[in-house]
């Protein structure tokens, strides 16, 4: 481990609750090891704040290995920071330099209201899922797992889409705060699999309707979402959602 760590200036969004006005506050943090994860760096900041009698910075996190999707953070204007396909919890301080000023903000979107500091409410995603992100199969109904073969390329594509961790970076990165990448990942996964076929029209219509109701914006095809996505979800899924949606509207009985 290197002897002398980095000295950093942190510009952190502080907001007591949804109704109070927020502001940036500056903090200095010395001797930060390059081997620390970004969240461990915030742990050290919070330990320092606690000692000084200032309430620690609230931020969401849980698994700290890039899979639960609970961590977030806009770091210098980039969702989950500068690395590709990396969540904030997997970002390490070796990515920063001594003397840097780092700006840390919450996800900003109408459908993700701020709870405190860097913590936002993402239950809108759950409601989009509740609208149609499932196969309607009750426990005990299932036929043998091998009764329906699935071509390996389809399964691989379904898995690529299913890898979404539901963090919301796509929404935060989008100038319209659109949830199209999130929603399309689930629609695509199910559309690629025979198990998802019976409900595919109904699913896409309901999920898109719920997405609109939650206040997410429209897609502008700028692909910022894909660039920000820590799980490597491709915008091809959005194209597939659009095709699914069109087919559902034009050809299905579920059409609007």
């Amino acid at each position, binding site marked *: 481990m290197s002897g002398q760590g980095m000295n950093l200036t942190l510009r952190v969004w502080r907001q007591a609750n949804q109704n109070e006005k927020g502001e940036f506050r500056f903090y200095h943090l010395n001797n930060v090891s390059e081997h*620390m994860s970004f969240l461990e760096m915030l742990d050290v900041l919070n330990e320092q704040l606690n000692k000084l009698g*200032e309430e620690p910075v609230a931020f969401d996190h849980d698994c700290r290995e890039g*899979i639960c999707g609970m961590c977030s953070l806009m770091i210098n204007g980039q969702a989950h920071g500068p690395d590709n396909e990396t969540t904030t919890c997997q970002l390490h301080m070796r990515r920063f330099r001594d003397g840097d000023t780092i700006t840390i903000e919450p996800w900003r979107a109408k459908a993700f209201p701020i709870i405190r500091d860097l913590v936002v409410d993402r239950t809108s995603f759950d409601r989009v899922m509740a609208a149609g992100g499932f196969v309607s199969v009750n426990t005990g109904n299932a*036929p043998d797992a091998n009764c329906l*073969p*699935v071509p390996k390329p389809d399964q691989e594509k379904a898995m690529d889409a299913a890898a979404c961790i539901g963090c919301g970076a796509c929404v935060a990165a989008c100038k319209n705060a659109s949830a199209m990448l999130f929603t399309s990942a689930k629609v695509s996964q199910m559309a690629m699999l025979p198990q998802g076929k019976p409900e595919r029209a109904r699913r896409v219509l309901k999920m898109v309707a719920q997405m609109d109701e939650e206040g997410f914006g429209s897609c502008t095809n700028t692909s910022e979402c894909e660039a920000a996505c820590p799980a490597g979800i491709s915008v091809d899924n959005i194209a597939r959602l659009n095709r699914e949606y069109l087919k559902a509207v034009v050809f299905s009985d579920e059409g609007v």
Partner: protein
Amino acid sequence: MFKVADAPLDGRVPDGPIAEKWDNRKNELKLVSPNNKRKYEIIVVGTGLAGASAAASLSEMGYKVKSFCFQDSPRRAHSIAAQGGINAAKNYPNDGDSVWRLFYDTVKGGDYRAREANVYRLASVSGSIIDQCVAQGVPFAREYGGLLSNRTFGGAQVSRTFYARGQTGQQLLLGAYSSLMRQVGEGGVTMMPRREMLDLIVDDGVARGIVCRNLKTGEFETHTAHAVVLATGGYGNVFYLSTNAKGCNVTAAWRCHRRGAYFANPCFTQIHPTCIPVSGDYQSKLTLMSESLRNDGRVWVPKSADDKRAPNEIPEADRDYYLERRYPAFGNMVPRDVASRAAKERCDAGFGVGESRQAVYLDFKHAIERDGEDVIRSKYGNLFHMYHKITAENPYQVPMRIYPAVHYTMGGLWVDYNLQSSVPGLFVLGEANFSDHGANRLGASALMQGLADGYFVLPYTVGDHIGKHGTKLKKLGDDHPAVQEALESASSRVKSILAVNGTRSPDSIHRQLGQIMWDKCGMARNAAGLQQAAKEIRELRDVFWNEVKVLGTGESFNQNLELAGRLADFLEFGELFAIDALHREESCGGHFREEHQTEDNEARRDDDKFCYAAAWEFQGVGEQPVLHKEPMEFNEVALSTRSYK
């Protein structure tokens, strides 16, 4: 340090041959008619594999369900981080697998400390789990013919592990979560995220509800129901550093323990052999590298302790593939407890690698030469990526450095065959209970157990409780004394934490607790160390209640207050852990007592004295707990010394 109850504890295992027990029990269970189910409410705490699958299934059956989790969404539960796979006795590879073999491997892997009948049921429903998950759209790995693919995991000589890249837990959880959200959408489940359960409401000896704190607003809430289902995971974070998510905690289970639920075998803790080693004192958690990697990676250290060469410069002749050397039959695929101890043995003997010397190599050189980098990438790409991110080393070129870390807890709240705790009406599922893995869990069996409990066991057995008692259980109002007492107890505890106003952060005290646990209750334990640990934990508990500093109020989103509350419970639980480890004068599975080992350092069990589950009854903080023994009887799998040589 403890008292012993006179009567043995009865696991209420059904009669009949092992293969018929579950059917026999199902035939005896009371049913609740479809029209009546909607009159009954069930609380499910936790939304991991066990909790989400239970909540979804109960709602599909018609019960009114309330589902609680401390995270912002049920999809975050830590089941999501399970990587390698899920076992099932499908025998698709035609390699001789069967329900009996899965049962046998699990009982043996658990070092003969699990309840046979439970394990048999687990193995027998394992196939239905895969069916259910595939029907939900879980994209398991497939062969080119379109059928499901399998791989091998530790402790087995057949390929029975189904997987979805290195993200099997994620895909299974998202499957269960999608079923849960479907029920939320249809109105059968009320979802309550960002709630922490802080107490169990018990009226007339029966579990009737919970007290929780709304973490967003700080408000206390009481919820009553006809049954309470706890699926709140394990207690590995008592060690501070573990592979668990930061939020994992023992609070809900411990609060139930304080209300009368026995806690069984807390000392049975799994130390996983393949984790990324600790790198600094700021470290907040440890990251697992899936056991599946041992299918293709070979574990080694240099033959000479003085070998300072970079790993790729060390020729074959100077490498000690110690697992292959010591255990030729299973090689790198020995069970986790065996692999972890072997790594510790090499490091303690001075052969460890890396800066800290507390690591061994996991090397993919031969696999990459054999199969090509693309094949290895397709199997483990996300794990290699994760390793690279954390260590800044490329495992395609340099061997991984790994070391054991706390991973899974086999102990948990004691449950009978119906998964009901010693408090009627309180059911416990998944990692939170103690029942199926004995003293050591085999890889790819946690996902199996969580989903077996939630999809295929609890939905039947909870009906028996409701069928028998439902009509007698009158609705408890907010002003009921049992509700008021639990609410008062939970809220006054939070107030006392805030009132300490000392100088130490909860995190700093938690790290100290973790160090005590790792040093004295970790991979190797002895009587003197365990006694010392119990004493130090008691002292640290006093430090907590005199010196902890939690800023802010209880009426707001306050993460340090959450941490402090969980730590307060860990500080009570840790002492019981040490007492349990001290009382168990044998080595078995994840519990290794230095006094009880063979000449070649293998674990020495004592079946004459310790072939039982130790279920502890709470008597008060700092008071001597009462030990209830449930004898473990082995009628199908003969008790024998585990050998993987």
